[in-house]
């Protein structure tokens, strides 16, 4: 396999606390050496002496970061290959800078037994684009009644379990699930939404829903489940990871729980950090997402939670749908945003440009922390690590055009917005796969 030398970029590797002008030497798909950059760039495409026969990639003006890790991706295969396949989803991932994605189990059939896990692993292996890590279901058929065979799912390669799309609403079942999962040291990812409180709702319950006459989902539909789950995590010693946090109340509950030493982690999404329920405008289904976009106060609390460590990571909740589904009326259209290809730039524009986070903190949230939560070795550019690398042009500005997405989900509330930060190149185990 070819040797690669990535030179003259700004290496940003929070896992090894490096931030500065370092060159990366890649051999056999691994990071072979990390060394300070020489003063002069190598001649373009040339084989300077220092590169010692390696192909040189000049990363001048670029950030060199570990490939991003998404804890929350919907790939739709098996079942809805018309809306996304592993191939289109992985292409979207690497285009967005992600070299590892965790596949949510709400497929048809769901990822609730070994066969589906094996299918996904084999297909991802064949594609060789991004690393796909399945998340198994907590309950059979995601029905919320009987637990799946946790041990078999983890052995087959699941990094976590979740009934995402549904909460595990039954408190007794959630208690048992958290207890039983303890021996595997892996998290249960909760889609925190009380099904009765949210029933029929299509957007955040507030002035906008009142104006449009749409059924609202109160922030409390999330926070009552978060409150219950941190209590159950406290009771059982189990690990709950709360998906796509959307409300100020939930941030406060998790902040308190972490202080008490409860084993709880959580994520939020780029769209919850960037947008509010005002994005729904006049029934714009591009902004229909679950949990819904909420108020400016909620958005500010999520950013504060990211800054103080309450929120561990940012996950895309990439949820592709067919054009005709999103073209329906607001009640009928499905929830979800196609997010893999805009996640980084939305975060840069929302968090880095206004100086709310540093680049190091952002890479922590988009690569290091999600890898830690998934219990995988990604998110690091230390010697010996897989050469999963993203080159980022931090100043590039581009305008979002969903029609140009490689994902089959060509819908985004950011359509037409000009964002900062572009993925210049992506390497998966030393092979260029996207950008």
């Amino acid at each position, binding site marked *: 396999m070819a040797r690669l030398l990535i030179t003259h970029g700004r290496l940003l590797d929070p896992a090894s606390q490096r931030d500065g002008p370092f060159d990366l030497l890649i051999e056999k798909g691994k990071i072979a050496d990390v060394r300070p950059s020489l003063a002069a760039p190598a001649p373009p495409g040339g084989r300077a002496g220092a590169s010692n026969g390696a192909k040189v990639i000049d990363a001048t003006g670029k950030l060199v970061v570990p490939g991003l890790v998404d804890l929350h991706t919907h790939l739709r295969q098996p079942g809805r290959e018309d809306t996304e396949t592993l191939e289109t989803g992985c292409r979207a991932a690497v285009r967005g800078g992600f070299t590892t994605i965790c596949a949510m189990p709400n497929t048809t059939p769901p990822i609730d037994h070994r066969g589906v896990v094996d299918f996904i692993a084999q297909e991802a292996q064949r594609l060789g684009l991004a690393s796909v890590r399945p998340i198994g279901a907590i309950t059979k058929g995601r029905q919320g009644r009987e637990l799946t065979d946790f041990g078999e799912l983890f052995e087959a390669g699941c990094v976590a379990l979740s009934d995402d799309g549904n909460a595990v609403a039954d408190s007794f079942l959630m208690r048992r699930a958290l207890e039983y999962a303890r021996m595997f040291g892996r998290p249960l990812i909760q889609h925190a939404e009380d099904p009765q409180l949210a029933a029929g709702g299509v957007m955040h319950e507030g002035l906008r829903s*009142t*104006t449009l006459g749409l059924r609202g989902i109160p922030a409390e539909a999330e926070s009552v489940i978060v409150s219950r789950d941190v209590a159950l995590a406290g009771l059982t010693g189990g690990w709950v990871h709360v998906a796509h946090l959307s409300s100020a109340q939930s941030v406060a509950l998790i902040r308190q729980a972490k202080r008490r030493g409860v084993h709880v982690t959580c994520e939020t999404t780029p769209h919850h950090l960037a947008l509010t329920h005002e994005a729904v405008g006049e*029934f714009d289904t591009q902004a229909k997402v679950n949990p819904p976009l909420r108020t400016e106060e909620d958005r500010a609390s999520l950013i504060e939670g990211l800054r103080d460590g309450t929120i561990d990571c940012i996950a895309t909740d990439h949820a592709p749908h067919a054009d005709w589904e999103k073209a*329906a*009326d607001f*009640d*009928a259209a499905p929830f979800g945003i196609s997010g893999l290809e805009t996640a980084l730039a939305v975060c840069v524009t929302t968090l880095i440009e206004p100086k709310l986070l540093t680049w190091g903190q952002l890479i922590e949230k988009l690569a290091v922390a999600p890898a830690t939560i998934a219990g995988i070795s990604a998110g690091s550019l230390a010697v010996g690590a897989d050469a999963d690398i993203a080159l980022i042009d931090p100043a590039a500005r581009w305008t979002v055009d969903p029609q140009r997405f490689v994902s089959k989900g060509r819908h985004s509330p950011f359509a037409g917005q000009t964002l900062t930060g572009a993925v210049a190149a992506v390497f998966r185990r030393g092979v260029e796969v996207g950008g």
Partner: protein
Amino acid sequence: MMPTAVGSGSATQTRPWTKKDLLGLRELSAEEIRLLLKTAESFREISLRPIKKVPALRGKTVVNLFFEPSTRTRTSFELAAKRLSADIVNISAQGSSLAKGETVLDTVRNLEALKVDILVIRHAAAGVPALIARQASASVINAGDGAHEHPTQALLDLMTIQEKKGRIKGLRVSIIGDIAHSRVARSDIWGLTKLGARVTVCAPPTLLPAQIEQLGVHATHDVEAAIREADVLMLLRIQHERQEAQLVPSLREYRLRYGIDRERLAHARPDVLIMHPGPINRGVELDSSVADGPYSVILDQVTNGLAVRMAALYLVSGAPKVEEEFA
């Protein structure tokens, strides 16, 4: 374009109406609402003639596209179109596969291929008329969408108040009932507040939507207070489903606390108007003695509804695209 038979109202001199569609009162200016009311007044007289027909929309095709059951509104639009000499077709799509949102646009594309001029749309989902209006070159009139808007109902309410009280500005109007699920309430709130009325909404907390006061109204749970100060009482239908959804413990409890009967009306001003968009749930929100009593203008509302719908059809049909064609 205004037929001379209608008279020489000043609305005929200039036509500041520029919108292709009538989707709701929220998006209209006070001027546009006044123009609709003025146009409706000029049309009211047509229905009093022995030959109730003018050629204003001759050659135009109107489609009543109703995805939700309706008799009153559909009939009112149908008669309005006929009195303006338009051709009108009724399509009832409720309960069929057409009720699904994603096929609404297919239905509309088919109708467009038949070269219709105006689509009058009712749908159970908020935003469907707006969705269709964006896609269709035909004009769209919203005949009620979910809990969003029912603009012609609010216009006929405004017309009735104007007719009976001589003004709208400064009047105190209390809307009592299921505000949360009511498109009529929302359109009335926009129309009344834009024209300067002071609006109170009155319901138990379960039937008031979030942050309703930010729409510029006062909210109360106290029905006697809402009655006492009002020049106009607008009652809304309380639906049986609300009881099932635990929004009110029982219809009996609702009647006891919010139903308007003669006893409760004793608190009202002597010149109060009682209005209701119909159909009335007699013995729940409104006692028969009040519905049929001297303060009730419920049937005047129905009469004015016809004039308002004639005005709406006429104005949207005369939007610039038509004028350009004849320029």
